[in-house]
Structure formats: structure tokens, C-alpha cells
């Protein structure tokens, strides 16, 4: 970190002696008050963990989200973009330099937690809780930083409300992992041994070890993702393969986790035997489609992208073309490949039932996702503003909920497959309807791109 100018600058700003003393005094007073009333034990350790959550997850996420946005708002970001600081150093400097003060406070809290809990000696739970809380804190800060980096590609001025939003997204993303992780620790605490193992691709793993490893892996992915986002801000280009690698990794990871409730739901929707290859591939394709939505909302979709794509295609600069090609398109293509492969495999998989029905349903879900992503792109071209994505999301939410309900109330059932995946009735007719709708969306998109893309010369 010593050779990282951004980290050093943040240290100058965040870790001033007066601030460090204030943090020690504040937390010291809190823990002294609780400790003198209840002594060492659960009350003090719970207070320490609550203080950790408040400092790391609420305050820290705000600092992480603000680390870039504040520079944009204060007019210092352009100088940083023109500097020689590497994307890696900039991302690490912002991630850990910008939050160094809250980590100082957070580590004090964890120290008090250890002190309060270790009165009877070391226990595995101590280490497990510490690892889970540290990992979730890192992950939530990374997500807040990534969300703010995504945001600054779309607009160049931010109010406090938006920073709160990015802070909340980081918190929301880390909360389920924290909940899962702490529940793992609690199960261990209460001796529910049967729940301390989990299944991943039919292999049994200690639940704590699995959770901690997963958090560590996604922290690494998150840091790499933040660096890649920073590369774009610092005017470098990214190839498409890392995102696709992350997509495939996440699909493989999620598909293998055994969740009993999910297995039952999957069987109802796609007649599949659990733990078959088709089962894993179908879950994987759904994960990839969900990530396609995420990236479609995150990436810029203005006419400049399509103008440059046309230029690169015209000049046969394929490398530049694929660097700029919307990741949502390549992600959709990847999902399609897996769905087709799953369908093909189904005909050879003697253990499977209803392969034809399953393929129709998978294709239908793919077409809905493709239609939605086409529509999100269309909205960005029709209404070129930072609110275009939100408008598209509201429209899609209405089309999935209110519109079918209105049709239903009016007794018009035939049009419902245009708005929701409908698995009852004639599946091929339903598939044809959403197919026509998706093709129509992409024809309109192609026409819109042709009309908005302007010639490059005056």
C-alpha cells in the first residue's frame, strides 16, 4: 500500500490522529458502559457485533459508495482519470483507503467481541464469526464501490439520495450472506450438527467452511470486478471474457448448491430429476439469464455504443467490436447455448422425463429474458437519460403484473402468454406468441439503432 498514492491520500484524509482518538474514545465509552453493567459475556459481545455492523455495513458502505462519487461531485475525478495511477491501485486505494477509518473502528469491535467471548478459552465459533463478519464487510464495500462505478458511467452529478441508494445496494447484497453466515455459526453454537453440513454437487462440506470459502471467492471476484470497472473509468478497455468467466463460475457455483425448496420448485416448473446434468444446466442457464438482466441494467446503452460498434464492424476491427459489444448480448448468447445444449442432452438422458415440455419452458423463459433486455435497451435509446433503466424496469414490472391481471379481469386469457410465462394450455402456441413478441422488439430495436446512429463525418 505504501506505493499507492490513492491509498496514501485517503490515509491523510481518514486516519488523522484526532479522528482515531475520537473513535477509540467513543467505542471505549460504549464498551466500558456495557462491560461495567454486564461484565464480559454475551451482552458485551453482542454489543460489539452490533457496533461492528453499524460501523462497517452502514457507515463503511456509505464511504465506499462515496469514494468515487464525491470526487465526481467535487470536480477532482478528471484529474485522477488523467493520472498515472493504475486501475488496480486506484480501486484498492479507494476500497481500503476510503474505508480505513471504519475498519479501524470495526477491528476494535471485533477485538472486544473476542475479549468478551474468549473468557472460557478459544472456541471455533469465535474464529468463524470473525471470518464471516470480516468477509461480509469486505464484500458489501466492494459491491457499493462497483455500484457507484457503474453509476458514474451514466451520469456525472449525484445527490445524497443516490449515494444512500448505492450504500443500500451494497448492504442489501451483503445482508443475506451475513444472515446465512451467522446462522451457520449459530447452528454450530447450539449443537445442531445435522445442519452444519451442506451438499454441493452431491459432495458434503462443512457448512461454515463452505460459506467462508464462497465469501472469500466472491470477495476476490468483487475486487477483480472493481478493478475492471476502474479500468473503464481510467480510459482502458476490457475484453468480454472475464465477465463471461464470472457468469459461468456463478452459474456452476449456484447450480450445485442443494436447496430442498428449490429442488421441489424446479421439479414443478421443469420436470427434472434432481442432481442430473440437465438439472444443473437448467439452473445454471437461469442464473446466467438473471446475470444478463443485471449487466443489461449496469452497462451504458446510448447511441454512442452503437455508433462505435457500427464503425468497428465497418472497419473489421473485431477485437474492438467485441470489447464494446454489450455484455448482455454475449450473456444471452451464452444462456442460449446452455439451453440448447441442455435440450440436446435431454434426448440422450434416459433418466429424464418430459424433455420436450422442459425444453419449451426453458426456451420460453429465455425469450422473455431476451425480450426484456431488448426493451431495456430500447428505452435507453428512446429516452436517453439516467432514468431510462428505471422507467424500463417499472414498465416491465407492470407488464408482468398489472397488465395480465387486467386481461384476466376482462376475461381475455389468450393474450396472457405475451406478458407472463404461461405453462398451461398449448405450450407451442404460447411459445409462438412470446417468440413473435421478442422478434418484434428486436426489429424495433434494429430500426431504432439505424435511426439514432448518426454518420461519423459532418
Amino acid at each position, binding site marked *: 500500500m505504501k506505493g499507492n498514492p490513492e491509498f*496514501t491520500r485517503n490515509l491523510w484524509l481518514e486516519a488523522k490522529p484526532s479522528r482515531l482518538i475520537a473513535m477509540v474514545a467513543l467505542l471505549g465509552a460504549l464498551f466500558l458502559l456495557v462491560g461495567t453493567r454486564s461484565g464480559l459475556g454475551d451482552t458485551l459481545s453482542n454489543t460489539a457485533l452490533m457496533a461492528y455492523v453499524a460501523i462497517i455495513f452502514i457507515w463503511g458502505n456509505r464511504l465506499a459508495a462515496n469514494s468515487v462519487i464525491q*470526487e465526481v461531485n467535487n470536480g477532482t475525478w478528471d*484529474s485522477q482519470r488523467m493520472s498515472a495511477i493504475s486501475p488496480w491501485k486506484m480501486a484498492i486505494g479507494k476500497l481500503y483507503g476510503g474505508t480505513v477509518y471504519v475498519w479501524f473502528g470495526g477491528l476494535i469491535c471485533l477485538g472486544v467481541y473476542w475479549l468478551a467471548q474468549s473468557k472460557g478459552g478459544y472456541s471455533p465459533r469465535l474464529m468463524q464469526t470473525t471470518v464471516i463478519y470480516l468477509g461480509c464487510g469486505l464484500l458489501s464495500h466492494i459491491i457499493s464501490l462497483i455500484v457507484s462505478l457503474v453509476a458514474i458511467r451514466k451520469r456525472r452529478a449525484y445527490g445524497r439520495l443516490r449515494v444512500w441508494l448505492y450504500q443500500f445496494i451494497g448492504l442489501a447484497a451483503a445482508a443475506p450472506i451475513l444472515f446465512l453466515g451467522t446462522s451457520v455459526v449459530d447452528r454450530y453454537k447450539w449443537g445442531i450438527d445435522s445442519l452444519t453440513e451442506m451438499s454441493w454437487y452431491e459432495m458434503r462440506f462443512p457448512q461454515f467452511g463452505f460459506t467462508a470459502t464462497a465469501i472469500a471467492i466472491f470477495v476476490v471476484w468483487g475486487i477483480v470486478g472493481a478493478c475492471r470497472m476502474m479500468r473503464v473509468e*481510467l*480510459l482502458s478497455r476490457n475484453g468480454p471474457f472475464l465477465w463471461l468467466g464470472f457468469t459461468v463460475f456463478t452459474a456452476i457455483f449456484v447450480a450445485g448448491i442443494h436447496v430442498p425448496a428449490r429442488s421441489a420448485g424446479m421439479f414443478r416448473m421443469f420436470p427434472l430429476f434432481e442432481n442430473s446434468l440437465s438439472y444443473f444446466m437448467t439452473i445454471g442457464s437461469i442464473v446466467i439469464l438473471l446475470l444478463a438482466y443485471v449487466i443489461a441494467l449496469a452497462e451504458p446503452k446510448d447511441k*454512442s455504443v452503437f455508433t*462505435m460498434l457500427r464503425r468497428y464492424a465497418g472497419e473489421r476491427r473485431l477485437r474492438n467490436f467485441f470489447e464494446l459489444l454489450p455484455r448482455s448480448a454475449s450473456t444471452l448468447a451464452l444462456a442460449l447455448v446452455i439451453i440448447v445444449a441442455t435440450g440436446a442432452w435431454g434426448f440422450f438422458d434416459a433418466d429424464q422425463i418430459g424433455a420436450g415440455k422442459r425444453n419449451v419452458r426453458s426456451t420460453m423463459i429465455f425469450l422473455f429474458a431476451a425480450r426484456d433486455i431488448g426493451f431495456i435497451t430500447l428505452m435507453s435509446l428512446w429516452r436517453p437519460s439516467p432514468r431510462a433503466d428505471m422507467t424500463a424496469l417499472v414498465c416491465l414490472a407492470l407488464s408482468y403484473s398489472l397488465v395480465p391481471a387486467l386481461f384476466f379481469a376482462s376475461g381475455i386469457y389468450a393474450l396472457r402468454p405475451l406478458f407472463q410465462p404461461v405453462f398451461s394450455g398449448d405450450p407451442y402456441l404460447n411459445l409462438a406468441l412470446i417468440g413473435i413478441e421478442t422478434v418484434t422488439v428486436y426489429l424495433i430495436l434494429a430500426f431504432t439503432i439505424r435511426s439514432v446512429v448518426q454518420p*461519423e463525418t*459532418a
Partner: protein
Amino acid sequence: MIDIHDLVFDYPDKRALFGINCTIRPGSITALVGPNGAGKTTLIRCVAGLTVPFGGSVDFDGVDVHAFPRECHRRMGYLSDFFGVYDDLTVRQCLTHAARAYDVDRDMVAPGVVAAAQKLELEDRLDHKAGELSRGLRQRLAIAQAIIHTPDFLMLDEPASGLDPEARNTLSRLLTSLRADGMTILVSSHILAELEDYCTDMLILRDGRVADHRPLAGSTGDKGIRLMIDLAEPFPALITLLQTLDGVSQVTKTDDGAALKFAGDGKARHLMLRALIDKGVPVSGLREDQMSLQQVYFDRMAAGDAS
């Protein structure tokens, strides 16, 4: 130094630059002027590589700025019209961060900080917080940050806005001294009179197009000055005669005589004048071309309105 080819840039609702072509010559201070919305800031951001154009290219000493932005940025300095400094850091910390961010050699950071502070007359405020400085001093600090790595090419977008007359005068002297050190400078401003003090060239933008690009009064772009010869009465052979004289080039006819580029010292100018008089030319005056930046600007704007 900077070659701009067919630069096109679109905002979502309108085209900002329509195929800009121009060259910024080394060692010049180019005034980038034009009415609001002409595309000045967009052009500067494209040249700086901060904004990717839809078409065309910007070459910095033969290197494509948008293909290799980070290589070019090491030799560029930029001050945005909406600049900022880190208010909670001291001037010394701000400059140290800038030096390290621009990868200045570790041993040269501390001397570089002092040198930049001296150049901007900030040396007595090195330990003041940036947030405590006046607008003019913050501006100086921002410029010091932009030049701490001694770039070859400096871009300043509206550097004088909000400055008092004294601070503007300091800025003027600074830019002249930076040019003397070999820096090429592109400066955008609305304050034409002030640009005239230090600019050598003028680039006028109008509606996203180059309306004019020329060296300014007294500056011909290389060695030499522009001179005006006024006659008491017409002398038809004047142009032909001038073209035969040593040090004279770019001769053009004017209403009252001729304009020319002259390379030579005062004695050479005296000899040229004597030669003209010896040949019977009715010279009534010999003067430097004093057409001001403001005159050129308003002439071009008027010509644009008329067309």
C-alpha cells in the same frame, strides 16, 4: 504537436463537434474561443482523451490519444472548468499526491512540490489547507497540480473565470513563463482581452465547427513578425518589389498598401524600408500588424452571421 482529424462528437440530443480539423503547433498558446455551446469544452475533453469521440482522431506527437490515453496523459496536463481540490488536505499534500499520481520520480517529488508552489506563488501557503484558500489561490493550486509533472501539453478550460484582475495578471504571467519553458498550451476562455496578453494563436469554434484558426497579431507562427506598409498614394509594383527583398514573405495587398511577414531585426527592417524608399515607393507608414484577437473574433462572428 496536436493533430485533430475529422473529430465528431454527439451528445444524446445533438451533435457537438462536426468534423473538426486543426493542428496545434508546438510552443504555442492557443486561445480556444467561441460563443456558449460552440463545443469548446467538448473539444478540450476529446483532446485530453477524457471523452471518446464518435469519429475522427486526435494525435499527440503521432500517438493516437484515444488508442493510448494513458501514455499520452503522462505528457499532458488538464484543468477542467469545474475543477476541484482536496479541501481537507494541505497545499503540500495536494501537490505531493498529484506528483505521485503522475508517477514523478520519488526523489523529485519534494523538490517538484516546492518548484510548482514557487511557480504559482504558493510557497508561503504550503501548509495551509486547500479549503481555506481563496478562489484565486485554489485556482493556482489546481494549475500547480496540473503542471507538477512538467507536461509538454497543458489544457486549461476557462482558467480565469472567477479570478480578480490581480489573479488574472498572475495567470497571464504564468502561462507566458510556461510557454517560455517549452510547454504548448490550449486555453479556453470568454475573456478575450485577457487571452490577448499571452496567446500566440486563436482557434475560433462556432456551432461545433472551426470558424477560424490563425496566429495572432505580431505572431506568424515561427520566426518573424507581421508588418503593415501604408502608402501615401498607390504604387502598382509594390507587391512584386516586396517579394524580391530579403526576409520578406507572405506578401498580401491591403487597402492602403501591403501586409507581409518579415524575419529580421530592427536594422534589417530599416534596410528594407530604405530599399523601398530608394525605389520610389511612397511609404507613409510601417507598423506591426495590430489586429487584435477581439477584432478577429468579432469579424469572424460577423462573417458567420452574414453567411
